[in-house]
């Protein structure tokens, strides 16, 4: 009876996904939203999400999550883990979207242009990557919500715990380096490099080195890395990977506020140099904090949950995963306004 019920459920799920894919393909092919197309950004987001999934999860865990999203049954524990995979995928898409916007924004500012008008268009197109990230996050949240509901129901029914679905029992021991994780990090690095090359392709430039120099604003890098390490050490080993999430997010937030205050002071002093330095600090601090969140903190938290050392992410981590990319987006918009707003001399 259970088997006969399983197949219609799978069929319905596949049909829903097929209809959604047809709808999005039709919308894309219609050209109605051609102004919302950023091919390099879209490619970065999709490949970056795959890489981020590999950094935090093993192959069998990912395969199980996909099968269970398509309707396969499982134990409460297995369904709960698959729900966490989809939640993490949504989180990664959202963070990667904001990170993509920050990187795109830096490249838009860093490459020579015919004037402020052309640079403004490039900066606005950078925001599209956050929009893509948001859409992908919503798509990933659908199976996450469904599977967590199923897991809750299974727990209520007092189902016996089974862990065989994920390829074996939960490992208490933490193996930091696995082939999947190495592949994930290599792919992630490749995606970042490829995206930068795709974005700068066709733009006037004197070689890749100036872009690398533009991306590295050392004061922001020092503040983000130093602050994250200091906060993680201060919280101690007991906090686990959450310490890194808090460290990167809080340091990034401090960096954003510092940059904003410096920029406002620059406006008050009518000092363009100060405003430019502050804008560079805001963009770089947000980019490196997001990079730390998605490449270091989030995979560590995922492994803690998948290895059974924690039941679920902490409320504070979830809050930072949602709020910090949103803050980044808001601060990038503020930076855009600060860059394009002309300053007139007093009494002129």
């Amino acid at each position, binding site marked *: 009876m259970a088997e006969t019920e399983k197949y219609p459920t799978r069929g319905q799920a596949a049909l829903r996904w097929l209809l959604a894919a047809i709808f999005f393909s039709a919308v894309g092919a219609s050209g109605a939203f051609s102004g919302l197309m950023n091919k390099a950004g879209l490619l970065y987001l999709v490949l970056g999400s795959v890489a981020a999934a590999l950094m935090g999860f093993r192959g069998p865990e990912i395969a199980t999550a996909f099968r269970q999203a398509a309707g396969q049954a499982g134990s409460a524990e297995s369904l709960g883990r698959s729900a966490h995979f989809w939640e993490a995928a949504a989180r990664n898409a959202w963070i990667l979207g904001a990170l993509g916007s920050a990187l795109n924004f*830096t490249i838009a*500012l*860093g490459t020579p242009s015919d*004037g*402020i008008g052309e*640079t403004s268009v490039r900066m606005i197109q950078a925001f599209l990557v956050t929009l893509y990230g948001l859409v992908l996050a919503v798509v990933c949240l659908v199976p996450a919500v469904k599977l967590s509901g199923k897991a809750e129901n299974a727990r209520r029914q007092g189902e016996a715990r089974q862990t065989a679905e994920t390829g074996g029992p939960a490992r208490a021991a933490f193996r930091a380096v696995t082939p999947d994780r190495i592949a994930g990090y290599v792919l992630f690095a490749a995606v970042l490099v490829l995206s930068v090359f795709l974005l700068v392709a066709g733009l006037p430039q004197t070689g890749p080195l*100036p872009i690398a*120099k*533009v*991306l*590295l*604003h*050392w*004061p*922001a*890098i*020092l*503040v*983000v*890395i*130093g*602050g994250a*390490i*200091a906060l993680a*050490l201060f919280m101690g080993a007991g906090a686990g990977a959450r310490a890194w999430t808090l460290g990167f997010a809080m340091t990034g937030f401090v960096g954003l506020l*510092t940059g904003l205050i*410096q920029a406002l002071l620059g406006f008050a002093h009518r000092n*363009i*140099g*100060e*405003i*430019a*330095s502050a*804008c*560079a*600090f805001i*963009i*770089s601090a947000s980019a490196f904090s997001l990079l730390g969140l998605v490449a270091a903190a989030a995979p560590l938290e995922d492994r803690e949950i998948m290895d059974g050392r924690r039941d679920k992410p902490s409320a504070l981590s979830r809050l930072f995963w949602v709020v910090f990319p949103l803050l980044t987006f808001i601060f990038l918009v503020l930076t855009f306004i600060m*860059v*394009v*707003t*002309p*300053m*007139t001399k007093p009494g002129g």
Partner: protein
Amino acid sequence: MTDENKTGLDVDDLLRRALADDLPADVAAGMRRRIERVRAGATEKGAPAGAWAWLFRRSVWAALAVLMLIAGFLLQGARSRSPLADRILELKAAAVNFETPRS
């Protein structure tokens, strides 16, 4: 002292007391081997462990992190030049020229 070493010493002590006069040769050899192994382990681990322990000492990382933090804020406060800030400066200057009212 670890639990394993403590258990080993307890067993050695028991054997020594039970066989005070005539400790069998193989037991004596086993005890010597155990002592040698412990000594060799201590000398092998000694030198690199010291260097690694220093490297992974929390206070070293804490000092390094605080130094990075201070250096970052000082550099930013001093408005150190960076290619990104220079480009924004150029764009801001261009925007000023673009918006200058014609009298």
